[in-house]
């Protein structure tokens, strides 16, 4: 049979588990994960400290403070929620109320040595776990709730057997409250309350705005509400327009213009300057006779042909209103951040990136059956020694006009449900997977893509370009050592006619002293990320002929200039590169509830790829602010990278770290001083009312100081026998008063007679002597003297 202590431990564990499952359910809709987890840990940890405190000499104090603690602890989530909403972090009102209940339950669980509390805590914990499973959808919630269920079963069985044993031993049940009458009483009380409420306020009771916060309602909504039937203001809007119904702000209905990648680039970066058209003479017509055409269609015609790095931001182009969320182009499920390629360019003339039209030799696409689903295999698994592990993403096309599959680097296989025709899968000339049979991928299509992870470690230690010739640098030794089966495959990617001396010099300087191979690529990327700043407004003037030089001098510009500089610069030192345009799936856009990441028009991005042999092109990210494409590291590489990162961070913040360490050291060294001072202030303030209060608080102060010097009274020792030897002084008169203080304390604790008001002066003087003599430093001295004595 469980002992009392393990029973109470079990109860608190049960309650903590239910709190954890509630936390897991709250995670899905939270606005600040850090804050939520931090507070959850705090809310669960503190009752455990209280539980532990109840098993020390603080027990009486804690029992005495229980009502106060209960009120404060329960209302703490409400107070923090109120404060947090001011800074834009919040939670649905019913969740806040549940956290209040959770706190009350945890505290009651900590005090579960009262048998009634134990049952109440168990009941509340059950409710919390039930609510968590009802609202949560993540596996973590179910796992925790399942664990809770198992523990609850054990708990109930233990209680049952205990009760049986008690009944057998005592021969009767021990019920404090008569069950039938208390249930009846409760029902009657609640009914009476309802009647009074409804009778006095009439129908307005159940139509009060925000009475049930999550369900919205008329005239009221909550920005942090998790769900609702009315959606507050939106519902009102729908009521006012007769033709509309339900929530009116559906992005699918409003934004159905289906922009292409080209349109999005123009929106985000500005359009390339166009040569002025020749003025043709026209005859003005009356407005009624003009036939309206859709303006945007013409723009899409240029899609996929070129990418100009000479663009101008046009003021007034941004028409998106503040506060309105941007419409998602696609949704991505899977690990973020992620680079999704849509177009690739191999030729650069100094102003525009274009594709030469030459087609790379790709392995044939095979349709395979995998778990009953058709998969188009673009690349065989493990085709390169660099490949390491597979990664799967699902991309849902919402509002993008393209027939290309947004594909991650090293695209291996593509699957669209029920599409088992091979002509739906193909390679474009610029090496992008596309839906060959159609002009565009239908809306709401979900494309599953599998990509290979890469481990670049082997590239760092040898010159991978040694295997293919550099077409433009004939005098260099790389040419002689080249063994290459497809020289034409590499040639057009190393062609760097658009380069200039400045770029060549700069890149040569960046790679100086770095051994050939991937580390040179990394050096160039690193310098670009370090020394240059992203600025979408900072573009070259319209008549600029050398955009790259302009960028190198200005040291700022939009991401396509970073990518262009990296690509052309790397070509200068003999690495085959190409430019990639597409989307950068941002980690911070992740929607925890839907567990997917929306990609909006602003996420269009340009980066580069480096050819490392075989069919492998490795994406590089030269733009600061965007994360590098993920590299699959071995645990050793990971540990190494982490250690190096940690030490470099420490090196950067060395002064701050030293200051903090110094401060902590001083605080630690003087901890007993300031803690004792704090204790004295608190005890002095609280012990002013009466002689008893003064005695009580002086005892607590001495206990606190003894704890500070590390000689906490063992619970088996009496106050006098433990503290008096720590409070020795040479002054006989003071020592007499100290002993008198102990006599008064014993009288307070163990005598049934009260301390009268005429004793007040005596008590005060005794307490003063005790506070003066029972100083933590003196205690330490006494402790030293005592411990040096042979016992």
């Amino acid at each position, binding site marked *: 049979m469980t002992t009392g202590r393990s029973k109470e431990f079990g109860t608190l564990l049960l309650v903590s588990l239910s709190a954890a499952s509630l936390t897991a359910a709250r995670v899905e809709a939270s606005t600040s994960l850090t804050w939520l987890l931090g507070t959850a840990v705090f809310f669960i940890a503190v009752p455990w400290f209280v539980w532990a405190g109840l098993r020390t*000499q603080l027990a009486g104090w804690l029992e005495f403070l229980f009502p106060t603690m209960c009120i404060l602890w329960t209302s703490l989530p409400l107070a923090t929620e109120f404060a947090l909403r001011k800074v834009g972090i919040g939670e649905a009102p019913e969740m806040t109320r549940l956290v209040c209940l959770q706190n009350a339950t945890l505290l009651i669980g900590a005090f579960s040595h009262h048998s009634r509390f134990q049952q109440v805590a168990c009941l509340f914990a059950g409710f919390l776990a039930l609510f968590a499973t009802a609202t949560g959808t993540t596996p973590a919630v179910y796992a925790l709730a399942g664990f809770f269920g198992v523990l609850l079963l054990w708990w109930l069985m233990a209680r049952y057997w205990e009760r049986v044993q008690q009944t057998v031993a005592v021969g009767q049940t021990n019920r404090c409250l008569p069950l039938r009458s208390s249930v009846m009483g409760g029902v009657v009380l609640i009914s009476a309350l309802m009647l009074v409420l409804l009778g006095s306020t009439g129908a307005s009771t159940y139509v009060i705005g925000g009475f049930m916060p999550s369900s919205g309602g008329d005239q009221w909504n909550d920005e942090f509400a998790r769900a609702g039937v009315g959606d507050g203001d939106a519902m009102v809007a729908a009521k006012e327009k007769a033709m509309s119904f339900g929530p009116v702000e559906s992005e699918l209905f409003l934004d159905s213009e289906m922009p292409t990648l080209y349109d999005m680039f123009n929106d985000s970066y500005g359009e390339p300057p166009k040569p002025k058209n020749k003025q043709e003479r026209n005859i003005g017509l009356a407005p009624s006779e003009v036939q309206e055409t859709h303006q945007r269609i013409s723009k899409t015609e240029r899609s996929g042909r070129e990418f100009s790095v000479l663009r101008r931001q046009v003021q007034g182009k941004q028409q998106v209103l503040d506060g309105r969320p941007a419409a998602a182009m696609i949704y991505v499920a899977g690990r973020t951040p992620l680079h999704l390629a849509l177009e690739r360019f191999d030729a650069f003339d100094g102003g525009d990136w274009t594709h030469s039209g030459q087609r790379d030799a790709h392995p044939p696409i095979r349709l395979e059956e995998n778990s009953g689903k058709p998969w188009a295999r673009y690349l065989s698994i493990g085709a390169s020694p660099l490949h390491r592990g597979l990664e799967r993403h699902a991309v849902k096309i919402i509002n993008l006009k393209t027939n290309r599959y947004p594909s991650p680097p090293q695209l291996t296989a593509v699957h669209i449900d029920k599409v088992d025709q091979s002509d739906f899968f193909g390679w474009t000339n610029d090496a992008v997977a596309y839906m060959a049979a159609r002009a565009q991928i239908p809306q709401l299509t979900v494309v599953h893509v599998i990509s290979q992870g890469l481990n670049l470690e082997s590239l760092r230690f040898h010159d991978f370009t040694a295997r293919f010739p550099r077409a433009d640098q004939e005098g260099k030794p790389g040419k002689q050592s080249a063994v290459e089966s497809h020289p034409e495959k590499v040639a057009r990617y190393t062609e760097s006619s658009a380069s200039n001396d400045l770029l060549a010099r700069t890149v040569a300087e960046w790679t100086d002293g770095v051994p050939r191979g991937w580390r040179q690529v990394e050096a160039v990327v690193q310098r670009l990320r370090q020394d240059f700043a992203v600025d979408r407004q900072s573009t070259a003037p319209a008549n600029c002929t050398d955009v790259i030089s302009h960028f190198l001098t200005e040291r700022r510009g939009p991401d396509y200039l970073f990518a262009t500089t990296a690509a052309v610069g790397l070509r200068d030192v003999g690495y085959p590169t190409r430019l990639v345009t597409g989307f950068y799936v941002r980690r911070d856009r992740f929607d925890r509830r839907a567990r997917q990441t929306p990609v909006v028009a602003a996420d269009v991005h340009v980066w580069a790829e480096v050819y490392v042999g075989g069919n492998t092109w490795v994406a590089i990210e030269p733009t600061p602010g965007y994360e590098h494409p993920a590299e699959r590291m071995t645990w050793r590489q990971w540990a190494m990278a982490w250690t190096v990162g940690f030490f470099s961070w420490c090196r950067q913040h060395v002064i701050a770290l030293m200051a903090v360490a110094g401060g902590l050291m001083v605080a630690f060294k003087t901890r007993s001083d300031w803690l004792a001072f704090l204790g004295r202030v608190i005890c002095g303030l609280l012990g002013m009312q009466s002689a008893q209060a003064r005695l009580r608080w002086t005892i607590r102060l001495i206990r606190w100081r003894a704890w500070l010097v590390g000689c906490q009274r063992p619970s088996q020792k009496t106050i*006098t*026998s433990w503290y008096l030897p720590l409070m020795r002084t040479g002054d006989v008169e003071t020592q007499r008063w100290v002993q008198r203080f102990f006599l008064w304390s*014993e*009288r307070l*604790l*163990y*005598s049934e007679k009260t301390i009268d008001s005429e004793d007040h002066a005596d008590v005060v003087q005794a307490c003063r002597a005790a506070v003066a003599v029972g100083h933590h430093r003196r205690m330490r001295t006494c402790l030293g003297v005592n411990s040096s004595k042979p016992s």
Partner: protein
Amino acid sequence: MTIQRDVGVEPVKDVTCQYQSTIDALRAALNHALIGKDDIIEMVLACLLARGHLLFDDLPGLGKTTLAKAVAHAVGGQFARVQCTPDLLPTDITGFTMFDQKAREFEFHRGPVFSDVLLADEINRATPRTQSALFEAMAERQVTIDGQSYPLNKTFLVIATQNPVESHGAYPLPEAQLDRFAMKLRIGYPNRTSELEMLAANVGSADGAQTETPTVISPRQLCELQEHVSKVPLAENVREYLVDLGQATREHSAITLGLSPRGLIMWQRMAQARAHLRGRDFVTPDDVQEVAGPVLEVRLSGDFDAAPRIVAEILESVSVPVHEGKLRK
């Protein structure tokens, strides 16, 4: 465990102790008889005030008999002494009825138990039969002979001595007998200063006889004092502490026979007496702890040397109440 109170402190409240001078005189008298054993004297005093019987258990020549005689003389009243030997008979202690030829009737000859202080020297040399003769006298303060009960004096006090190391020809006291003693004390060797003082005091007394201890309290006064001490109150939390300690003796693995309720009552009386000697009108856990050793050791049968360790373990296993007794439910 013993608190060193090297600075005199007057009681927090005036405990209206008209007996304080008597107690001081008693203490001085006993201190004079046994030099340098203040803590033992305090225990003897506490036992006296708690109306408990006393067992001295120590090696020969450490002053057991001297102290017992000093107590007997200090209390005044009738003093009787029995030197226990294997041929001692129960009637040698309780008394016997004898036919008086002259008066032609049976006459009761009172034994040594009809005294105020009975010193039973080397009690473990008497046979169990004789030892058992003391059961009724010690527990109920009366003897029954031939169906007739004879009450003993109210202040009847047994002071017994025994030698723990000589086991040949000795009969260990039965548990029932031990439980009737309030405490067992070990005097131990005196320290160097005390021994020097003792030697100095002995110069000039040719027969080695010690000076007679003066009588400082009458049996009637002692009885009043005992009544007074029995009224010292215990707070709820201290009573609970005592009960917890009693329970701990019953749960301790090394103890076969835990503390009896009679033993617990004796412990409480000893703590009361101790509190009174300290000039307090309430009992603290300190009092309970200080008398724990002598009270428990007499009851814990077993190894002579293990007893102090077991007592310490029992005290270590129970938390001292530090909440206010009045606040507790």
